[in-house]
């Protein structure tokens, strides 16, 4: 009998608590039944079915509120020891559908940032809780700093441009600037989580409900992948938000990068796990050279091995990232900057590995890799979209500069 991927692509189960394992099983059933086994139908009615599938996961099963504190109506998984479990769950969601995975990842990242025991922002969490703990789907959109425009002198976060700024306004703040491209869901978001600066150029993170006045939303952009997470360019023209909606601690933006690298890593690993399953079926059933099963051809087998290796190692690294984050004290000296660096380093490696695995595996699938029917091309487009947006402008050079700063104490790169 064919083995389950979890028996092959190993991860340290000791780090995942039992409650998480039970939720994982529920999500696994959802993934299998509602999406994976229904994929041919899902291919052709993707856009319309998307909300329905999300609802069953987020509202019926209740995962949307999972990481909010119990006292605000959440699932109570706002402790750090649940983090590896959430990683497992996000992977499982993305195994079915990367777009739902990305929305989950952004949700959990935001509440990781503001509601986790390590750094609770109670007023903000309380204010946002109804949106995520109610009976409607809530879509967040995370806006990280990125490339600036030539000729503009923009405040920077680790070299990346922060074109949105805040200034105090009666009882809160006013946001200005933008033409920023979110990671995803810019066009359909209910809540924006925005990297910005104060007037001293210090980085902050601001939360902006979509109904606030002054949000300028560009047209929905057509994108390679994550087509259900309709994106758009977003600007702010004097948008007002309450005081507690801004996190002014300059570590917050770095911490947001950690959370998002972790959970988007989980998405791409999950997507590549499903790719592994599809490829395995293909390699077993397809024959080449007039009769040999593809998997028994040594060259094909070596490509299969490369695929498995990339996925297995990136899954291992993903859990290591979670583990270092949760137990940084046991890892020697991971202060904030170190953790930020490790998250960027492992996060970008995971994205690269997941995409490499799919790219290589597609080599064996010929046109089946390319036809919508097989679903492989969707994983490929989705993961690529995540990778490009997350690992950032300049072929990952900003991440490399982060790494060089940490390990070699560079000052000016």
């Amino acid at each position: 009998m064919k083995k389950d991927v979890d028996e092959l692509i190993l991860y340290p189960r000791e780090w995942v608590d039992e409650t998480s394992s039970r939720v994982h099983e529920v999500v696994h059933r959802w993934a299998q039944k509602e999406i994976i086994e229904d994929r041919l139908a899902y291919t052709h009615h993707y856009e319309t079915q998307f909300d329905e599938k999300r609802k069953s996961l987020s509202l019926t099963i209740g995962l949307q509120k999972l990481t909010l504190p119990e006292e605000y109506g959440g699932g109570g998984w706002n402790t750090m020891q649940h983090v590896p479990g959430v990683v497992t769950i996000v992977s499982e969601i993305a195994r079915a559908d990367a777009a739902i995975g990305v929305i989950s990842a952004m949700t959990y990242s935001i509440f990781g940032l503001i509601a986790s025991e390590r750094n609770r922002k109670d007023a903000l969490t309380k204010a946002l809780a109804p949106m995520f703990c109610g009976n409607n789907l809530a879509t967040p959109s995370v806006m990280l700093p990125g490339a600036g425009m030539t000729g503009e002198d923009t405040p920077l976060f680790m070299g990346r441009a922060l074109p949105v700024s805040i200034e105090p306004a009666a009882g809160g703040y006013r946001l200005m600037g933008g033409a920023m491209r979110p990671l995803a869901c810019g066009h359909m978001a209910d809540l924006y989580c925005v990297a910005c600066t104060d007037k001293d150029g210090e980085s902050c993170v601001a939360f902006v409900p979509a109904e606030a006045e002054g949000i300028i939303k560009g047209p929905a952009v057509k994108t390679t992948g994550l087509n259900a997470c309709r994106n758009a360019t977003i600007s702010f023209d004097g948008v007002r938000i309450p005081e507690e909606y801004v996190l002014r601690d300059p570590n917050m933006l770095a911490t947001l990068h950690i959370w998002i690298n972790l959970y988007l890593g989980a998405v791409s690993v999950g997507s590549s796990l499903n790719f592994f399953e599809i490829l395995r079926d293909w390699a077993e059933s397809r024959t080449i050279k007039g009769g040999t099963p593809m998997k028994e051809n040594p060259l094909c087998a070596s490509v299969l091995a490369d695929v498995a290796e990339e996925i297995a190692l990136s899954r291992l690294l993903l859990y290591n990232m979670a583990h270092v984050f949760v137990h940084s004290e046991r890892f020697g000296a991971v202060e904030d900057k170190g953790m930020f660096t490790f998250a960027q380093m492992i996060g970008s490696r995971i994205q690269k590995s997941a995409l490499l695995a799919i790219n290589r595996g597609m080599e064996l699938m010929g046109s089946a890799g390319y036809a919508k029917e097989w679903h492989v091309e969707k994983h490929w487009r989705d993961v690529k979209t995540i990778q490009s947006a997350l690992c950032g402008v300049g072929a990952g050079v900003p991440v490399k500069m982060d790494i060089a700063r940490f390990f070699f104490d560079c000052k000016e790169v």
Partner: protein
Amino acid sequence: MNHIDEFCVPHEYISPMEKHLRRVLRNWVDTYVMPNRRLYDEDWKDHHLLEPAFDRLMAGLGFQKAMFPPECGGWGLGKSDYLFRAAYAISEEIGRGDTGIAVAFGVTFWPIFTILIDPYENMRLAKELAPLYCNTDKAFFAANAMTEPQGGADIENMELLKGKTIRTTARLDGDEWVINGHKLWPTNSGGTGKLFGVPCTTKPGSDDPNDFAFIFVPAETPGVTQSSPYEKAGMAADKNGDIWFEDVRVPSWYRAHGPGTDFIAFYQLISLGQVASIAFLTGAMMNLYERLYEFVSTRTYRNKPLKEHDAVAAVIGRIAGDIDICRILGYEAAMIGDRRRMPYGDPITSERTVGRIRNIKDFVSDRAVENFGTAMDILGAYGADRDWDIEKHWRDIKIVQLWMGGKQLCQMEAARYYFNCKTL
């Protein structure tokens, strides 16, 4: 460097007509393709937007006549000493705009190459088929119906399998061939193709090259059925579908040549197809350079243009450098083909020519896949945007890497040549 035309050119190889060909096609691409190509993904089924572009290129500008000899109303390129180099230049210019268009256009010639390139000419058949190409004001599409459901890349693996796995049968009944079988995925199927070149076997299971037959089948012949096109990740201009042949009857002289010769004439297509594939890729990469140049000049890191940041410069420099290199190799691959009639050249069906050209195709494919991927990363949050055009090429060129037997077959044929492997 200020313009894509400054990428390396081996001047000594250039044909006298190249400059003219490129100018005409550059103008056509900029007029017909560039303004519309972002919408082509949605046009994959109907080709409403694509049709006028094809008509202009193929019938209006007359490019679909190119390969036929003048006596058939064509331009005579099929017999030119510059055949491969001209094909390279044409394919590159079109590929710059849209590799899907480039392949749909290029493949239209693919079946008739078996009868138009000396020494394997069949003028009777050429004259019969020429009006379809030369006597029309609409684009005419033809297809090579090669791949079969069970076979995958087997049909392209001629050297090893010699047609042994082909299940589409051709039986001579009086002065007609009767064809039965099921083909899938040909470029220009899914309803567009009006003429099919069909590799068949006259003796199922045989690996004797004499039992391989290449037969022309007009699409409207009774018994031919086409499916509607598949939905794919990209390459909307290239429709692909199933073709079923049920007791399809065509005249006996619709066979390209005859026992043995069909096999070798068909085998010529491999290298031609590979050289065109290389050109599609270098064309797409030239466009990559144009788009990337704009991005890295207008976007910043640390408030400096990306291209002025040494680490980014190294990455984009490598991309541009690869384009230069791939182009040198592309021209060399074309030249290897065009040396076929020179005293120091090899036949295009020789193991040496096939191995070398496959090797270059494999290499250029890998560079293209990697460089487009990197370019999307450079664009970061904009990498996935339709508006930057790079993502479209990224989706399209992956299929160029995969087609014609894919990467692994390329690797095997190259290895076989370089190391005299016997059992691969």
